[in-house]
């Protein structure tokens, strides 16, 4: 389960902050990036994100699975935009500066390039922040944080429970799949796709049944220990807010304000160097 959604313990100022403050900061940061199309601002945020990453002491190779995953999406996203709307940038910026022409409506324009740069920057602004949040926050503190920003504790706890049982269920999937392969269920490319899907059900059914059994045990165990007794609960892992936490939440809020300010200054969400 390493490399996916997991906490990487380090000694860093970012690790020391409370989960709730980091969650607020991440959400406002993402919001700021979503609002604006100002390339300069996005560039600045990307650089800041990389600096924060550096501060946290998390290495890129430790989160490479998620980076690769989002990189695939980013590339796919750009390819699709280009294929379906090669002139979208031209439309958006109201100018056309063609650099290279390929064939038909496909060519490279400065406006389209800038638009793609914006799209890429949106990924590079948000992904490092999400990774940073995930890898510097203990999952159970994450649940406590959700609860703190107003999510019901029953829902918040289910996040923590999912994280607790995902490794168990993966291991179980692995065991079941081995035993079924031994009975002759073929899951490799030796079999055609339809047969493979059909065969996969031979693993899913026992997995679902045993997961249901597990859920029954967990919910019984939780009930026997008073989960759901009161309308609120406290958290072993929750941390009290410190000055730094207020500061980063304020900073997050400021970033959103800057986005709005830029809309006002640029006369729209776009920063347009072409007019």
């Amino acid at each position: 389960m390493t490399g996916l959604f997991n906490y990487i313990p380090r000694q860093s100022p970012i690790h020391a902050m409370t989960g709730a403050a980091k969650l607020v900061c991440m959400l406002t940061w993402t919001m700021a990036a979503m609002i604006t199309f100002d390339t300069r601002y996005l560039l600045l945020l990307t650089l800041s994100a990389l600096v924060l990453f550096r501060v946290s002491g998390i290495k890129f190779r430790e989160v490479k699975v998620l980076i690769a995953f989002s990189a695939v999406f980013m590339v796919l996203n750009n390819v699709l935009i280009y294929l379906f709307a090669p002139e979208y940038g031209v439309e958006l910026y109201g100018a056309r500066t063609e650099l290279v022409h390929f064939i038909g409506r496909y060519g490279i324009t400065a406006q389209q390039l800038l638009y793609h740069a914006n799209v890429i920057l949106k990924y590079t602004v948000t992904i490092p922040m999400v990774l940073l949040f995930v890898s510097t926050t203990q999952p159970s503190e994450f649940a406590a944080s959700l609860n703190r920003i107003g999510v019901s504790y029953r829902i918040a706890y289910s996040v923590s429970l999912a994280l607790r049982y995902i490794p168990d269920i993966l291991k179980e999937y692995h065991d079941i799949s081995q035993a079924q392969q031994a009975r002759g269920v073929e899951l490799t490319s030796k079999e055609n796709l339809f047969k493979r899907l059909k065969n996969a059900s031979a693993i899913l059914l026992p997995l679902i049944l045993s997961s249901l059994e597990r859920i029954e045990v967990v919910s019984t165990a939780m009930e026997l220990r008073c989960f759901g007794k009161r309308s609120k609960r406290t958290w072993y892992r929750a941390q009290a807010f410190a000055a730094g936490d207020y500061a980063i939440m304020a900073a997050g809020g400021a970033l959103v304000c800057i986005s709005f300010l830029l809309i006002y200054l640029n006369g729209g969400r776009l920063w347009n160097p072409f007019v």
Partner: protein
Amino acid sequence: MPEELIKFSHFGFQYNAQAAPTLYDIDLTVHAGEKILIAGPSGCGKSTLAHCINGLIPFNYPGTATGSLTIRGKETREMNIFDISKVVGTVLQDLDGQFIGLTVGEDIAFALENDEVPQDEMRRRVRETAERVTIADHLDHAPDELSGGQKQRVSMAGIMVDDVDVFLFDEPLANLDPATGKRAIEIIDQIQKDTGAAVLIIEHRLEDVLWRDVDRIVLMGEGRILADLAPDELLCGGYLAEHGIREPLYLTALRYAGVTVTPDMLPHSIRTLRLSEAQKRQVRAWHQAQRPAPPPAPQPPVLQARDIDFCYDNGFHALKGITTDIHRGELMAIVGTNGAGKSTFSKVVCGFEKPQRGTLTLDGQDMAGLSIKERADRIGYVMQNPNQMISKAFIFDEVAFGLRLRGVPEDEVKARVEETLRICGLYPMRNWPVSAVSYGQKKRVTIAAILVLEPQILILDEPTAGQDFKHYTEIMEFLRSLHDQGITVVMITHDMHLMLEYAQRAVVFSGGQIIADDTSANILTSPDIIARANLKETSLYDLALCCGIGEPGAFVQRFIDHDREVRGQ
């Protein structure tokens, strides 16, 4: 007189979904500070009784109760499950399932969190409780970094932190190896002495629980309390054999030797048992009169492992130079603690994992080139939990599945499946849905589903885990009948009774190596191997020593041979 914590009077209970009551006319009182063992075969109502005590009945499992059940003088029907859980703390059987928190600290804190205990106080209480069960060094550990015994201690801490008056243990020994189980019984005893709480232990492994004294044994059967007696009296009353509970082995041995056991001999534990010189002589005479059974004729090896080395991706070196033979037609056991390498070895044999070094040969043929599927045609593997194997809704289809996947013509499938179902005693149920049969029968279905492929070797992971004596005997006699038909059976287990009674030979794994390969009787009488493999010496060994028999291994062997003869009749 100490306070009456729990009091059943003329209590009965019937689940809404069932046609007849599960509990009849229960009268039982638990006083503060008492330690009670509740025993009985599967289906006797002991789990239902436990659910009534901890409040899961009627809050989770609705039904109709008659008579009265009070907890600290209050009728439970006027309480809710949260009130009850402040008095009764429950440790469930499933060690992983009940571990709710992501780490030890959080799991212990769970009940406090739900009670809105402020964090400072919560942390202090968690630490104190963790210290009492000696798990304080592991507060930040995740469950997969803990052993079974440690997980159980965390569960105990999780209810101790709430200062309950009654500890309820649901089959605490089911998932532990023998030595860890012995330690668990010691810890339960310690906790009871420290906290002064009442302890209720639901367990059918009588001998193991009696490693530490209990005040009373409540024997249940068919929804009623059959006996509620001090251990010494219960053990002499002949109740156990009558109701499908295994009596302690040393008592069986004394019976065979013709010694009459009476309560004043303190028979509840081999440690306290008093035997007169005359009685010891009787045991010695029995030992000498038994003729040792001839050792089975050596058979050629069918599976040979030579110098197998295997290391997991995470660097865990699970097998270190394993060399062993499995002989044709053998019924043998592979034993050892969790992580000793026994399961990894079976995975390597089945081809689930590829060893980094070493060779495996089957009938002299190197297996390196064989796929999982090809190996499975000759080596069958049965998982511990049948629910993890069953993928079809009906018994016939489940057993036919492997043959159909192999493209066997349908009329041959029908013939072979029916033949296998007959062998397994499932033929009358062939058209039943799998969900309609009991756990033990499901286990048989999974064995049938493997057997139908006609493997030469059958490997079973913990074939009798979680089964009471009756079902254990059923499953094991079934495996023995397969063995008698010439199938080689390998059982991976940490059940010592199973090993002793059924395995002719046991291979002991420890730390990725084989540390012993001998008859089960010899292994369970060698203290050094027992200690290294987390086993426990059989009480027969102590009995042999106590009676001055110089060759305890031989005594144990003769006992098993004789016992088999007696039970075979």
